[in-house]
């Protein structure tokens, strides 16, 4: 039964998770994503699931790990320094191929930083913050509808690869309100998969949710990890390209910055300036294929990001094999403004900007 609602992005994530069969949520409050926790606190019990406000982010993701290993669809969410504390759990989940959904609604700054929107936790999300060779499947909503849709599909995706899926939003996407179509509610059977841990008769094969290399052998495990990551990279790239066929300069942006970038492309086109946009919907795997659709004579790219250094720059250089200059328009703690972005694009096309060196 589809329904419409006028809700925040954070609420859409929580509601879509419940509708996808998520029946375990644990989290610790942190701005700007506390609505996810509050929504779960208000609605998880009536869906027949468990809500726990954990003693820390570390404990919360550990609870999620236990619930997910036992077969539940489980989720936790955080932001900024709270997401830092999830890295231990993310690495452990990855060590034994346990799928779960984790949300990071990025806030701005280093350390405590600030409580408002930011996009400077990009590298942490896509390159991994925990130890070992793992990657998260990173989905980047830029609207309330996408908050719902990407979260709803995240559990199937996580189970398909037995990999953690990260919903990487930002404070602005989490806080803004829009109309959203909500998907139908499904129930998940905790015995759907043979890898879950549970009580079993003596004769049954036993599962051990710990470093799987000890059970399958280092060679087999290494080949499995390598193959899984490459398969995900090949098959799961998602993106939205906007007016890239003939563009002379192409913005690359996610989340709230991509909304401004799209508006800027429209303004520029009205003035006869050929701009375009590549919007990664998956930040990992980075949608390298999206760049194959871009005008081969494009003069350059411009990363639009709420950070200081333009954290996505190295991914754009990688996707374009360093064939084009990459500029940045970084607005730090502020949401980009279309007029300013248009001026920056004009400067880049006029040769007034220096290409970025990826840090």
């Amino acid at each position: 039964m589809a329904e419409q609602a006028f809700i925040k992005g954070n609420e859409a994530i929580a509601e879509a998770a419940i509708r996808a069969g998520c029946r375990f949520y644990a989290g610790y409050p942190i701005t700007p994503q506390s609505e996810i926790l509050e929504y779960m606190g208000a609605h998880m019990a009536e869906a027949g699931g468990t809500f726990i406000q954990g003693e820390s982010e570390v404990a919360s993701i550990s609870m999620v790990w236990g619930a997910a290993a036992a077969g539940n669809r489980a989720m936790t969410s955080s932001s900024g320094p709270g997401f830092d504390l999830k890295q231990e759990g993310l690495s452990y989940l990855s060590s034994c191929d346990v799928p779960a959904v984790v949300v990071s609604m990025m806030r701005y700054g280093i350390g405590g930083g600030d409580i408002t929107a930011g996009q400077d936790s990009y590298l942490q999300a896509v390159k991994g913050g925990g130890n070992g060779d793992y990657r998260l499947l990173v989905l980047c909503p830029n609207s309330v509808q996408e908050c719902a849709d990407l979260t709803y599909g995240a559990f199937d995706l996580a189970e398909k690869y037995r990999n953690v899926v990260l919903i990487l939003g930002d404070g602005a996407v989490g806080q803004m309100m829009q109309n959203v179509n909500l998907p139908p509610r499904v129930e998940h059977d905790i015995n759907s998969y043979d890898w879950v841990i549970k009580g079993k008769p003596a004769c049954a094969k036993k599962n051990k949710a710990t470093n799987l290399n000890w059970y399958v052998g280092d060679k087999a495990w290494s080949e499995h990890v390598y193959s899984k990551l490459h398969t995900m990279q090949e098959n799961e790239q998602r993106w939205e390209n906007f007016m890239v066929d003939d563009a002379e300069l192409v913005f690359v942006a996610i989340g709230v910055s991509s909304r401004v970038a799209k508006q800027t492309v429209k303004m520029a086109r009205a003035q006869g300036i050929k701009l375009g946009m590549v919007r990664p919907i998956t930040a990992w795997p980075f949608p390298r294929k999206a760049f194959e659709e871009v005008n081969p004579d494009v003069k350059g790219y411009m990363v639009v990001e709420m950070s200081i250094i333009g954290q996505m720059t190295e991914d754009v250089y990688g996707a374009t094999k360093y064939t084009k200059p990459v500029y940045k328009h970084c607005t730090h703690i502020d949401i980009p403004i279309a007029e300013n972005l248009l001026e920056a694009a004009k400067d880049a096309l006029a040769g007034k900007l220096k290409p970025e060196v990826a840090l």
Partner: protein
Amino acid sequence: MEALRKPELIVQPCGFCGGCGHGIIQRLIAESLEELNIADKAINCVDIACCFWTIDGLNLDGIAGPHGRMPAVATGIKATRPDDIVYIHAGDGASYTIGIAELTHICLRDVPVTMIVVNNGVFGMTGGQLSPGTTLVGQKTTSTPRGRDKIANGQPGDFLASLSHHDFEFAARGALYSVPEIAKTKKYIKKGFENQIAKKGFSLIEILSACPTNWNMPPVDANKRVEEEMTKVFPLGIFKDRGGKSNG
């Protein structure tokens, strides 16, 4: 007289050091699960460090690490599978130091899980360093080679006693230095599982255990040390038994 037999649950020789209590504890767990007829419902949640090895020693589904987080992990498992028997096997470092927040809050939530804490007063697997919550004052460890100094290194605490102030089901401390103490310890472990069968709340059983390897002592002397020195700081017995009604 009943013949002694190895519990079916134990499926490989245990690799613990000579004189270590972990092997006895693994056996007591296995015997208790079999005698209560719940082996086919049990999930083994082991913390990292020496406890870890029972994940392979026992023929159960198991989950291991992260260090100190097993009360949280077990909380997620029990919420998902409330009819399974979920137990934690962890050390004193995991439980009383790095994971004291997780242990405190599983007590406060009174989650119907059984937790066994093995207290040997050192970090065994990493080579015998100070265990901040349990190493006795004056005790030499690899990180306090001149003995634990109360000012410089802090002092041990009786966490079982302090946690017992909270409202949960059962807390007891046993030891392994004599046959009668082993028998009492087994009763505590069994009680912890019985509480879970009856859907009562959280049960916490601490066991004083010798670590001859890291104490640099022959096993007999190590057991004597548990009896004569450790029990003075960590008294044995039942700390709380709510005897409560079913918790769900």
